């Protein structure tokens, strides 16, 4: 790879990292605002205009709060926990294609940090590690509520990963590739996977809620039962990192859902638009770049809609109980996912047979 390419890549990675952090930061603000609006309130509006500096205030406060490690906690692991949670959360956005290709100086720049041909598996691998942050933190706190939260987190994440993976397999059967770029490219225009995989998407959505520990699956940190669960003993910025990691996870989950099921950066009539632009501007490069940037815009609109949905659900539904959660995961979602695989397989065969 040439050094210029490397430079672009480096810039891109930094930008994506920044955007991830920014979105996660402001997710906290939007969560509070959305909650307030849903509940007929106005929400934070004192810190800066319309409360826009609220996340910065929170961050500033958390940074300068006394850093406290409980006396009976396992010190090394206590610090390691939020670190892992944060690290793992930020890792996963690397393989998501936020846009198609830009043409700059005759170079093709793909708006994706790393293209690996096992992108989906990468995300899975990284997400499956996320639970360590919660488990280690919860265990190291040496607090029974934390431990219960950690145990709930572990069993919940493992259980729902299976259903999640199975629901994904149907998508992979259709696309025939593990590469996210490939999957995104296949959904060009309005040919989104959601039209073929509604059931799979539903299962994936439910599992995404469970994996990010959001209501109705927020058992690991359920306020009413476990007083915050795994992060009961955490204060200051370590708590901030846990909360941050949760919002990054929401962002990543939204991105993955947008990529896998909602056509990533594709939007309807993009080819018509591009053709028209080529005519209008008389430049393939400009047309391509405009469409690509529009695509990025669409991608983020989709992501934001999903984030909104996460929050909307959070402020509407009651949460499950532990055994009901397990029952839902193992007895309903996994069979449904297998059924979905069979249906997809049958569909593919039928299509091959007919056409």
């Amino acid at each position: 790879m040439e050094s210029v390419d490397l430079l672009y890549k480096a810039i891109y990675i930094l930008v994506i990292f920044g955007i991830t952090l920014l979105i996660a930061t402001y997710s906290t603000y939007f969560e509070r605002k959305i909650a307030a609006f849903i509940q007929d309130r106005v929400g934070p509006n004192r810190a800066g205009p319309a409360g826009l500096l609220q996340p910065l205030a929170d961050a500033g406060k958390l940074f300068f709060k006394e850093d406290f490690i409980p006396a009976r906690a396992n010190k090394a692991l206590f610090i390691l926990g939020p670190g892992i949670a944060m690290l793992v959360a930020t890792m996963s956005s690397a393989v998501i294609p936020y846009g198609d290709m830009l043409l700059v100086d005759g170079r093709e720049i793909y708006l994706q940090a790393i293209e690996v041909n096992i992108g989906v598996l990468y995300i899975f691998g990284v997400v499956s590690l996320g639970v360590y942050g919660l488990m280690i933190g919860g265990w190291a706190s040496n607090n029974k509520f934390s431990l219960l939260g950690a145990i709930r987190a572990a069993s919940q994440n493992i259980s729902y990963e299976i259903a999640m993976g199975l629901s994904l397999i149907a998508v992979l059967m259709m696309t025939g590739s593990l590469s996210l770029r490939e999957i995104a490219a296949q959904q060009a225009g309005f040919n989104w996977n959601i039209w073929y995989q509604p059931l799979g998407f539903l299962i994936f959505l439910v599992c995404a809620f469970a994996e990010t520990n959001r209501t109705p699956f927020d058992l690991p940190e359920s306020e009413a039962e476990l007083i915050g669960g795994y992060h009961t003993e955490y204060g200051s910025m370590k708590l901030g990192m846990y909360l941050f990691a949760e919002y990054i996870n929401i962002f990543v989950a939204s991105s993955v859902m947008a990529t896998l099921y909602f056509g990533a950066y594709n939007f309807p009539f993009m080819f018509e638009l591009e053709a028209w632009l080529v005519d209008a501007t008389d430049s393939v490069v400009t047309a391509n770049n405009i469409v690509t940037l529009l695509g990025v815009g669409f991608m983020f609109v989709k992501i934001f809609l999903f984030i909104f949905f996460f929050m909307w659900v959070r402020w509407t539904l009651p949460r499950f109980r532990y055994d009901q959660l397990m029952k839902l995961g193992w007895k309903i979602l996994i069979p449904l996912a297998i059924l979905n695989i069979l249906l997809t397989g049958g569909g593919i065969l039928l299509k091959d047979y007919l056409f």
Partner: protein
Amino acid sequence: MATENKTAELTELEQFRKDHGLALHEERQLTTLNLGPTHPATHGIFQNILQMDGEVIVDAVPTIGYIHRAFEKIAERRPFYQITPLTDRMNYCSSPINNMGYHMAVEKLLGITVPKRAQYIRVIMMELARISDHLICNSILGVDSGAFTGFLYVMQEREHIYDIYEEVCGARLTTNMGRIGGMERDLSPKALHMIDEFLKRFPKVWAEFEKMLTRNRIFIDRTTDVGAISAERALSYGFTGPNLRAAGVDYDVRVMNPYSSYEDFEFEIPVGAKGDTYDRFLVRNEEVWQSLKIIEQAYKNLPEGSYHADAPHYYLPPKQEVYTSMEALIYHFKIVMGEADIPVGEVYHSVEGGNGELGFYIISDGGRTPYRLHFRRPCFIYYQAYTEMIKGGQLADAILTLSSLNVIAGELDA
């Protein structure tokens, strides 16, 4: 705890194991979990030391008294009329019921009959209080199951109820409403208007709240068969009110021993079947509708007349008369100093409080203060059964059971 209690615990544990087909001395590590007293779900302040097997509660040892305020002792040192503010602070979710229940008990002792209008005003206020009590309980049940939003929707309605209180007595929560012998003032036109508005607006909000939870499977699953208690056990535990009715017994003081003209109103007593959390939720929901019905009837048929009894020895004369008439001034002084002639006697009066039969047992020796005032506090009685109700359930069940019992710490500890 005494040592004999330890053995009792152990046998209970063994009993539990036997009941559930477990080996008696299984090598199973039980964890001890201290639920409260600052746990968020305990709202007021209760402590429970739970013995847990994983997420299952094997045994619980409750501790209460964290806000014991010695109501009964204070009552022995205060003149009768100064006890009303104390009753406010017992079940603070439905203060007017406490106020008026106490007033009625004292009126029974003094032999005062209150005119119909005052009785109807009392009914309206008491039923408003019941609504505010039930809506806190049911919406908190939502909060504890994770659905926070419905709580805030109905809280807005509670604000309207508080506005009505404020218009009637000048305070929101600890109302100190009414006096011995009636109300301290008539319903103002504004108050009547507010009640009217409330009757129009509230049904929509309540229906919406019901819609959010009642048929949601997550909620049904969370609450069905959780914290169930049979009618027999409930009676043995002395349950009354919605919690007893959820178990299927239609005992309601308003119907069985009508007071304050409750016999004039048409309403039904909702009962459940199993006495579980879902039943309690439904019964309270339905009671809110019934209360609305009662308020509507009382509001429509509000009789004309005086808002207080004609009892100059016990009911403060109007302010204007105090300034001008000597006789009124003397009565005024006597009442405020607590020198009014209180007959010797003993009296028990109970009302259907927000949580059940709220009883006032007064012994008077003719002095300025009650000789003994005992409160029959329904919450004190419910909470006793809590241990039995949560055994064998999960931690999450225990929390919902607590919310659905609507144990108010102020009333529990007195």
